[in-house]
């Protein structure tokens, strides 16, 4: 901005500082770098992610926001030539510690993708699969209860309770996405990562997912990558702006959308990127 910011002391308020909850962050990332071969995709990113909040990652295509999201549950491990440095802890545990079980990690850090991807199985089996392989329930009754609870939390139960044996893929797009959220919830994660969860959905289905996120954030740490700035503004409490692999600015969503501190943030969210 070309503002002349005056050096006035007393009469004016200082900018509202970022509200940080009075508890340690769920995820702490320090000096994280990611390379895809020669390409430096994430540059020295440090950020704290808090519980019971939705944190939105925004930025233009190729800015690294999805890459950074995938770092958080080590989904980049399966990409050849991908190298990650720096330190990321989840509730104090270093997630890149060689001793850590990646399957367990991904149960703690669930993920919902852009395109709904239910298993080609029944609605019931979509939910029951995770708890079964992780051995979370002992009896059929317990499993039934877990399936019901997960579907209820994902606000899908009332729509599917009479047809649990039908194929998950037979549901509408919005229902499939909520099924995927229910599937992620079923294994009791701490964190839910959402990578453009609504970009394939119509406005009503989008509103349902957004409403659901607001419910879920009471229990989970939620991180959403979205291209819709309005969506980031609606659903998140904190917003992080990425650009060319840098974390440019992170702050309360209100602050980012009313008085961003960095010119690049300002230019991006107001639609001035050139």
């Amino acid at each position: 901005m070309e503002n002349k910011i005056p050096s006035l002391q007393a009469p004016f308020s200082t900018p509202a500082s970022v509200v940080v909850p009075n508890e340690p962050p769920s995820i702490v990332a320090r000096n994280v770098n990611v390379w895809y071969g020669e390409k430096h995709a994430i540059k020295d990113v440090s950020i704290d992610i808090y519980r019971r909040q939705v944190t939105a990652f925004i930025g233009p295509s190729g800015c690294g926001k999805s890459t950074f999201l995938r770092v958080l549950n080590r989904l980049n491990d399966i990409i050849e030539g991908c190298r990650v440095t720096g330190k990321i802890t989840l509730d104090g545990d270093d997630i890149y510690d060689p001793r850590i079980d990646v399957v367990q990690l991904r149960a703690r850090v669930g993920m919902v993708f852009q395109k709904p991807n239910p298993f080609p199985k029944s609605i019931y089996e979509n939910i029951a699969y995770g708890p079964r392989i992780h051995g979370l329930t002992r009896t059929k009754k317990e499993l039934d209860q877990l399936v019901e609870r997960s579907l209820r939390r994902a606000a899908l139960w009332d729509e599917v309770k009479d047809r649990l044996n039908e194929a998950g893929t037979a549901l509408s797009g919005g229902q499939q996405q909520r099924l995927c959220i229910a599937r992620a919830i079923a294994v009791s994660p701490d964190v839910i990562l959402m990578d453009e969860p609504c970009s394939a959905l119509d406005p009503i289905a989008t509103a349902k997912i957004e409403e659901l996120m607001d419910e879920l954030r009471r229990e989970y740490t939620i991180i959403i990558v979205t291209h819709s700035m309005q969506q980031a503004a609606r659903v998140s409490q904190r917003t992080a702006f990425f650009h060319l692999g840098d974390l440019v600015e992170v702050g309360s969503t209100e602050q980012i959308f009313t008085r961003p501190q960095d010119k690049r943030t300002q230019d991006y969210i107001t639609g001035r990127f050139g």
Partner: protein
Amino acid sequence: MADHTVKSFDEALEHLRNTLLRLGGIVENSLAEAVAALAKRDADLAAQIVQRDSEVDALCRSAEDQAVKLIALRQPVASDLRLVVGAIRVAVDLERVGDYASNIAKRTIVLAQLPALIGVGPIQRMGRIVQEMLKDTLDAFSTHDVEKAHSVWVRDEQVDEAYNAVFRNLLTYMMEDPRNITPCTHMLFIAKNIERIGDHITNVSETIRFIEIGEQVVQDRPKRDDSAFAIVEPPAGV
């Protein structure tokens, strides 16, 4: 600032800014002419100012309509949002300045028909301070100059002090001779109108700060208008 990727968004914001500047220009003229008409007892000039008020109202409505449309169609954020929200406030404040200038003109028409017993010098001086403030405010808005806006904010105190002086001065004339009451009452309202204009201009200067850097003024503005607490005893023997 860089241009929007969507050109028409830039054009709409620019058009809104220009509407406010046009509104400000007309109001600035009305205020200057109102003070001049008062000094010259020029009823014709005063009548022209009164007629201009509908143009001011129309421009204010236009600015408000543009702002609502921008919010509905563009969902502005950050500096764009602050401009749009600020524009609504600025338009209303400037429109009020126009109303007061028009009211000064109406009273000038009445005063021009009465004998010129009492000098309007002190009111003219008040008017000059306020005119300067309005000019600087409009400059600050068009050049994004927060310091200049702040200098206006500070100056409102001078207007209040000048108003107090005029208030006391007019009371003494009224006590001297009841025939002075009619012109003095009109002059008192004129002085009050100018004082109110100063307040609205100060509002605009606060809004400029909000538009440019997103901060509200938190400190109470310097206030020196204590005429609300004045008690006057008539001279002994009256």
